[in-house]
């Protein structure tokens, strides 16, 4: 009954997500961002189909080759197909972005919401913890954490009897995700707290309390959905930062380790000794760099577009 009444009352009014979508589509940079993000996700999902070779298949007979019909972007010093590595790099990037965002959400949203809702000592505890994390020097701290937890994670894998895994370089995904996640949740927690503070005194929240809705349900069903817009914007911009940080970490050799494909470590390999030895293969620097830049642009443009679309009054 109420449902059909609802439908009648909103008849002719576009649903809010459609309005947001329209504003995004009419904003060229945001549209560019959306297209690139969807494209990268598709490439990441379809990597096994799109890549002509496995990303870690070495072919020493065809090492360090210029582009050819067989290898569109040439091969690296171990004869790995660069085109395939760059395609698989999208999967690494998307995987890291999604996982770090999930870690950030899992820590930041409950802690921030609890701090904002209950206030008092919960608030003090969470916000002071965030303060401590903020006082550390940004990316350098992430590097420090990554360099510190890496041997620990490897030792743990060995202790579990996963010797091959410990040596393979794939554990580096865990290192990157953990260090970025641990450091990154504080910003989200602050944002969620501020949002909850502004929403929790609104009439509909008081009404929900008065109707006897349990506190947990009030937070998840009434407060958080109304605090969503800034969180979505921050997440979108944060995803660009995560991609960039993963690139930096991998570039510095603390992030994803070869053979795991990452635009950062491809860039590092190409810009380092390898590039000096084969200066004509400069595209191995430009292409992963340009793709990384485009992905970061895309997330930032999208975040900016979402900001305009979700806050039309500002």
């Amino acid at each position, binding site marked *: 009954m109420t449902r059909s009444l609802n439908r009648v009352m909103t008849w002719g009014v576009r649903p809010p997500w459609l309005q947001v979508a329209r504003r995004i589509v009419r904003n060229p940079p945001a549209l560019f961002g959306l297209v690139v993000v969807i494209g990268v996700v598709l490439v990441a999902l379809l990597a096994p189909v799109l890549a002509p070779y496995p990303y870690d298949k070495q072919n020493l007979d065809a090492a360090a080759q210029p582009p050819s019909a067989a290898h569109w972007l040439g091969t690296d010093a171990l004869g790995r197909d660069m085109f395939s590595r760059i395609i698989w790099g999208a999967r690494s990037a998307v995987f890291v972005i999604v996982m770090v965002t999930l870690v950030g959400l899992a820590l930041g949203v409950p802690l921030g919401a609890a701090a904002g809702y209950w206030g008092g000592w919960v608030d003090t505890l969470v916000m002071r913890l965030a303060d401590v994390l903020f006082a550390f020097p940004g990316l350098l701290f992430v590097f*420090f954490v990554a*360099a510190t937890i890496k041997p620990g994670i490897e030792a743990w894998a060995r202790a579990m009897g996963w010797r091959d895994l410990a040596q393979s370089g794939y554990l580096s995904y865990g290192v990157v995700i953990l260090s970025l996640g641990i450091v990154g949740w504080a910003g989200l927690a602050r944002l969620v707290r501020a949002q909850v503070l502004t929403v929790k005194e609104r009439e509909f929240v008081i009404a929900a309390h008065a109707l006897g809705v349990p506190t947990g349900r009030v937070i998840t069903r009434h407060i958080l959905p109304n605090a969503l817009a800034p969180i979505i914007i921050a997440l979108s911009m944060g995803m660009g930062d995560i991609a960039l940080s993963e690139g930096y970490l991998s570039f510095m050799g603390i992030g994803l380790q070869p053979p795991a494909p990452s635009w950062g470590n491809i860039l590092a390999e190409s810009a380092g000794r390898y590039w000096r030895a084969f200066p004509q293969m400069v595209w191995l620097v430009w292409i992963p760099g340009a793709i990384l830049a485009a992905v970061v642009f895309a997330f930032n443009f999208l975040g900016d577009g979402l900001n305009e679309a979700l806050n039309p009054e500002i």
Partner: protein
Amino acid sequence: MGTFILRRLLWLPVLLFFVSVITFALGLYGPGDPVQVMLGLHANPETVARIRQEYGLDEPFYVQYVNYVKNVLQGNFGYSLVRYRDQPVGRLIAEHLPVTVQLNLCAIVVGILIGVPLGLIAGLYRDRWIDLAVRAVVIASISLPIILLNPVLSFIFFREHIVFVPLLDRLVSIGPLLPQVAGRWEGVLSPKAILPVLIEATGVIAILTRQMRAGMIEVLSEDYIRTARAKGLRERVVIVRHAMRNALIPIVTLVGLMLGGLVAGSFLVESWFDVPGVGRIAYEALFARDYYVIMALTLLIALAYVLANLLVDLMYGFLDPRIRTMG
């Protein structure tokens, strides 16, 4: 306001305590043993054990931590173990910090000079092409990975050929610029500082432009702006005297917060442009596991961050009289 400041001041040592414990633990339980680094990988295990005992490194964590704090309170930050072997960390930082501070100050000044006018224009002409252009350029400039700049810049500046087309190459060759950007650091007032300052300024420009734009848009919709226009003030006066001034308040806050970052060198920029600042030292120390250096720098940055926050909270009171009456 008084109790608020008092609370803030009391919180400061607590925060520094947590920061130092975390950093100390990361350094101690991280990979690489400073003694091993000092003596080399093939050192005699007995020697290693003896030196560990000498330096008190075999003590439990809290004893080592308390010793460290005692030393720090006496102004002794320990010694560099690796690259700058046996130099006191305090002196090392005192030598390199001025360079970073100068570089960052220049970056902030450049950032203000570019960012504020850009944001002002974008806010005034909201949703027109110039606003879209400013936003796009700003986002693009912060998104550009700094790791890409290194190969790109070295490609541009350190190669004889740029386009590999003989005649065109001569036209666009930047050979004459080469000595201006490469080689040893000569201080922030030399042309060599242009690129690092500009790169470090991009972040400042982005933040200030965004804030200034949002601030202008918000202020321009206020009632007193309508009043000012209604009483027939010229548009220029309305914008400069009524709108801009109020939109600048958050800018002052942001710049204040940036002052906290003055002591944190951008390690990527500093290591690539051969800037002898603390960022480069931190970077080297991190990879060499030279952890007294990392400890001291982290504490310094944390302290600066907290002090800047405090400063900003105090400034609010001066800038916005409405806050002064509270608390």
